[in-house]
């Protein structure tokens, strides 16, 4: 029980520290903006550790963070292999193909208002569907290896991307399109010089949504058949073996990968859409 009290004590102290930090000028700096959430994250881990130890929670139910960290340390090769299979082979190619295909389709239907009017409501609708239910079907079609995982990701990513890109292509102001017209710009010139740059905030919004969908898709698809490695495989089999420390290790990797992917996209977004009001500070 002492562990629990210590943890609660640490929690309160850290929270007080955070309150002080966010009130002080430090929080205006870049360091402060990083420090406060890190302190918060650390206290959550401490509290978790304290709860598990203090209440003597069985490791087959909820392992302590320290146990998970220890598991990560000894399982790096396996984690890397799973990461490569699920993220590098399944999620990322699927993400790129899905986003790329959505881009091409958006451009292809751009000149046909008829097709747009037909496809957009359908795209909007499909984007709201639980596409993940297609996973078992796609595993049946594309086999058990990474191809089917990538296929699931492609389908999940495609529609949100399509809807965002089409909306983005319509985002340029009328005045700016009129200007292009007075200069006698061709369709391609208007597209390249005006409409694509103006669409970028929407495209990145779509990419951010798609990045989280990609991970979910790749992992869920592995529940329906996979080789004997991959994050989804590991999670589902280790639950069966009561290797919960390994499950949490995979979750940590997934969270890290997801955050890294999201962060990377946000970084590129900053660089590409530096001009957008939301990016100017």
């Amino acid at each position, binding site marked *: 029980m002492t562990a629990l009290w210590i943890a609660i004590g640490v929690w309160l102290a850290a929270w007080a520290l955070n309150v002080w930090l966010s009130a002080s000028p430090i929080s205006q700096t870049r360091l402060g903006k990083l420090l406060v959430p890190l302190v918060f994250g650390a206290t959550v881990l401490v509290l978790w550790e304290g709860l598990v130890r203090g*209440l003597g929670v069985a490791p087959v139910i909820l392992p302590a963070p320290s146990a998970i960290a220890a598991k990560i340390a000894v399982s790096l090769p396996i984690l890397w292999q799973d990461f490569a299979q699920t993220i590098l082979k399944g999620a990322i190619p699927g993400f790129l193909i899905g986003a790329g295909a959505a881009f091409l389709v958006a451009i292809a239907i751009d000149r046909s208002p008829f097709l747009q009017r037909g496809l957009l409501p359908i795209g909007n609708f499909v984007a709201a569907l639980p596409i993940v239910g297609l996973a078992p079907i796609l*595993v049946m079609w594309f086999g058990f290896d990474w191809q089917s995982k990538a296929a699931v990701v492609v389908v999940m990513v495609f529609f949100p991307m399509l809807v965002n890109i089409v909306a983005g292509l319509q985002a340029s102001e009328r005045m700016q399109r009129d200007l292009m017209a007075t200069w006698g710009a061709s369709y391609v010139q208007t597209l390249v010089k005006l409409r694509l740059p103006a669409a970028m905030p929407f495209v990145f919004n779509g990419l951010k949504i798609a990045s989280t969908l990609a991970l979910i898709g790749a992992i869920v698809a592995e529940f329906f058949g996979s080789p*004997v490695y991959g994050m989804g495989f590991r999670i589902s*089999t280790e639950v069966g073996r009561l290797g919960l420390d390994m499950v949490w290790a995979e979750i940590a990797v997934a969270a890290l990968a997801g955050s890294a992917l999201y962060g990377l996209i946000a970084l590129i977004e900053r660089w590409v859409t530096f001009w957008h009001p939301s990016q100017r500070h």
Partner: protein
Amino acid sequence: MKRLLTAAFLASMASGASAEDVKLQLKWVTQAQFAGYYVAKDKGFYEEEGLNVTILPGGPDIAPTQVIAGGGADVIVEWMPAALAAREKGLPLVNIAQPFAKSGMMLTCLAETGIKEPKDFADKTLGVWFFGNEYPFLSWMSQLGFKTDGSPGGVTVLKQGFNVDPLLQKQAACISTMTYNEYWQVIDAGIKPEDLVTFKYEDQGVATLEDGLYVLEDRLADPAFQETMVKFVRASMKGWKYAEENPDEAAMIVLENDQTGAQTEQHQKRMMGEIAKLTAGSNGALDVAAAEQTVATLLAGGSDPVITKAPEGAWTSVITDKALAN
């Protein structure tokens, strides 16, 4: 490993549940594989013993071991390899009864792949269930001397989903099937028995004990709980014997209890017939020789052994002795 269960959990178990309430966690979805329990419930055998039994169906990602660890069930239906592995992980499961005398697991291969005997598995892709069910397979492969990492001369293992598609789509040369379930799905899909080659684990000498009843060791120390389990096992076995004798009626009872509404009468009746072959000859008491054979098979599990040492106290005849006494 002493403080396995939380204090809170133990407290809630002691106060929350009345002695005669029993929660049974099944290993899989409602189907004739568990007919005995459903029959015992529907025919009032549990009631006669004064028990109030709740049957919890399982599913693809439900590990009964985890459910019982979390306090979600009092007794679970589990395969011995998974139970022993959990025991080694620190979850002290004990087998209290073994309604299934024989193993129904086999590997079903397409004849056109040229597989005639186990040594032909080399360089083929084999579908295996994981989630605790892979242990007998890994032992078998290790006995055959096949590596399972996909290296040349070994076998490539694929984690089979919950259906027989990998075989129909020819993604795997062989897949895991149960005599009572998936094998018939292959047949139903339109493949003739003569186009298939099957290897029963039973015949290959790597059989492990399947559906047994397991409880937590700590709780078994409580005489009241022991008494409840005696009643439970007695009523369950009565249900099993009734199901064996009236397979069609048993199948219909299962069907009525199926919450998914996806089971068919034809499939369940046929399954019941096959299940009866596996439960035949078991009165519920565990055949210690078969259990030791299971342990031996698992210990032979090669580089990644399922269990590293022979378990102690992983089964007890206390319950069945009392249950069968009168």
